[in-house]
Structure formats: C-alpha cells, structure tokens
C-alpha cells in the first residue's frame, strides 16, 4: 500500500484483504461519519454506533460497490441512510427545511445597507501558520452549527462533495442545500470575524 493512497485504491486493496488499507479508510472517514451521523440523528450518543454500523455495511457491500459514484459519496449515503433509520426508531427526525434564521439579518439597516462597516481581518489568514492556528476555532464553529447546517458544511466544504452529490446523499432539494450552506458558512465566518477583526 502506498503511503498516501486515494480512496478507490485503498478500497481495491481492502477488497483483496489488505487490513492496513481498510484501517486507512477508517482513519480517514470514521470521525466524519460520526459527525454526519450526529447531525442527521440530532444526538451524539448514537452517532458512534451508526458510524460503526456504516463500516459493517461497507464490509458487507465491498464487492457490490460498482464505482458509479465516488467511494465517499457511497459511504456517506450509507451513513445517512443508517442514521435516518436509527432516528426513525427513536421517533426523531432532523428537519432539512431551513428553519434557523440566518445570522446576517441583524447586520443591515432598514435601507438594506450595512449597519456598520465590515472590518478587515488583521491577521493574514492565507499564511499557513496563521491558518493552522485558526483551524481549531473553525472546527468549534462547525460543531456549534444547527444540525442541518453542520452536515451540509461537512459534506460540501470539508469533504468537497459537489452540490449535486450533497443533495443526493441527504435527499434534499438544491434550494434547501443552498440556504443551509449559506447560513452555515455565514455562521463560521461570524465566528472567525469575532476572533480576527481589528485585533
């Protein structure tokens, strides 16, 4: 197994019985599966079980994966399906109609213009060292998002799924996806703004 391999390579190796390849996939995705499961379930305590259950389903379906979608799209689709089943057993469901108001409503005056100046960020966040220091703050901000926004931000901006793939994995409309992504990103930006502006 190469030091850094793509998902499909690892999957191929895992199919051939390579334990290290499977472990590499688990290391890469397990935490994200827990995050997605938590968002869909609306609770943290069952998310680990759902993530483990997802890997079981992956193992059972290893030979059936046909590569019509990417491995991670397939993986997250299984996870969301499992999390929804688990939520249904608990008589819970997370609404994916955008219900939480956007953070930006209060930033504008009655004339629709900014109520206060948008202050430039003082630190050079494109600097690698500065960016690395900001990542824990970003992780915390994502963690504090409403469930539906969090899962969309994880899949679109961390996993890099396309908008269409996110809609497919979550079975949501393009309109709902857009609003949830917009609000989620604005929330995270607001958290960064509190940290970075005018320091």
């Amino acid at each position, binding site marked *: 197994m190469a030091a850094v391999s793509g998902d499909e390579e690892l999957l191929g190796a895992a199919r051939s019985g390579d334990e290290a390849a499977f472990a590499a996939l688990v290391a890469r995705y*397990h935490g994200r599966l827990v995050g997605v499961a938590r968002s869909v379930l609306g609770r943290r305590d069952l998310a680990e079980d759902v993530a483990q259950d997802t890997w079981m389903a992956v193992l059972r379906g290893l030979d059936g994966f046909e590569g019509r979608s990417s491995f991670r799209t397939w993986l997250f689709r299984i996870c969301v399906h499992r999390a929804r089943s688990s939520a249904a057993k608990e008589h819970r469901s997370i609404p994916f109609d955008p219900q939480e108001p956007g953070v930006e409503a209060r930033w504008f005056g009655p004339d629709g213009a900014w109520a206060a100046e948008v202050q430039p960020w003082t630190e050079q966040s494109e600097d690698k060292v500065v960016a690395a220091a900001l990542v824990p703050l970003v992780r915390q901000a994502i963690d504090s998002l409403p469930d539906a926004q969090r899962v969309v931000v994880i899949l679109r901006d961390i996993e890099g799924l396309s908008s269409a793939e996110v809609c497919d994995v979550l079975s949501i409309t393009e309109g709902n996806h857009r609003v949830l992504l917009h609000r989620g990103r604005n929330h995270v930006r607001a958290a960064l703004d509190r940290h970075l502006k005018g320091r």
Partner: protein
Amino acid sequence: MSVRLLGNDILCRQAVALMTEYLEGTLPWRERRRLRRHLRRCPNCSEYLEQLRTTISLVGQVGPDHLPDQALAHLTDVFRRYRDLPPDQPDQ
C-alpha cells in the same frame, strides 16, 4: 433567501444573500452581473466576500477527527473476520 432584484442596483443585504450562489457558480448571469457591479462600488460587500472565501478555505483545512485506538482496533477486527469468512458465508 428569496431576493428580488429591483432596478439595476442591489442592496448590500441582497448582495450578501447572493454570495453563496455566486461562489458556487450557480448564480444566473444577470444577477451575477448586478452583484459584480455592486461589489465594484461597495468595499463592505467586497470585504465580506473575501472573508467568505477565506472561511471556505479554512473549513477545507479541517482534518479528520482523532480516531480512538479502540474504535480502530474494533473495526479492523471486524474486517479480519469478514475477510476470513468462507466465500459462501458472506454475512455471518
């Protein structure tokens, strides 16, 4: 996030509401043109858009969560059991 664009100019509130579609590349060309025109003359909205771009870039740098050794050990153990099953008993 329904935004009606009246006339040729848009308000800052409307500009911000359009930014996700703009960044996703899904904004219809007419609205894209209006947004760009607004951005050229509005330093606040331009700054906001840059901050959104930075935010997306930083979110993309969030790595995988730490995986507890116990969870990894459990899953690799399950993997071993699946791997070592005889081929005609795929789901025991």
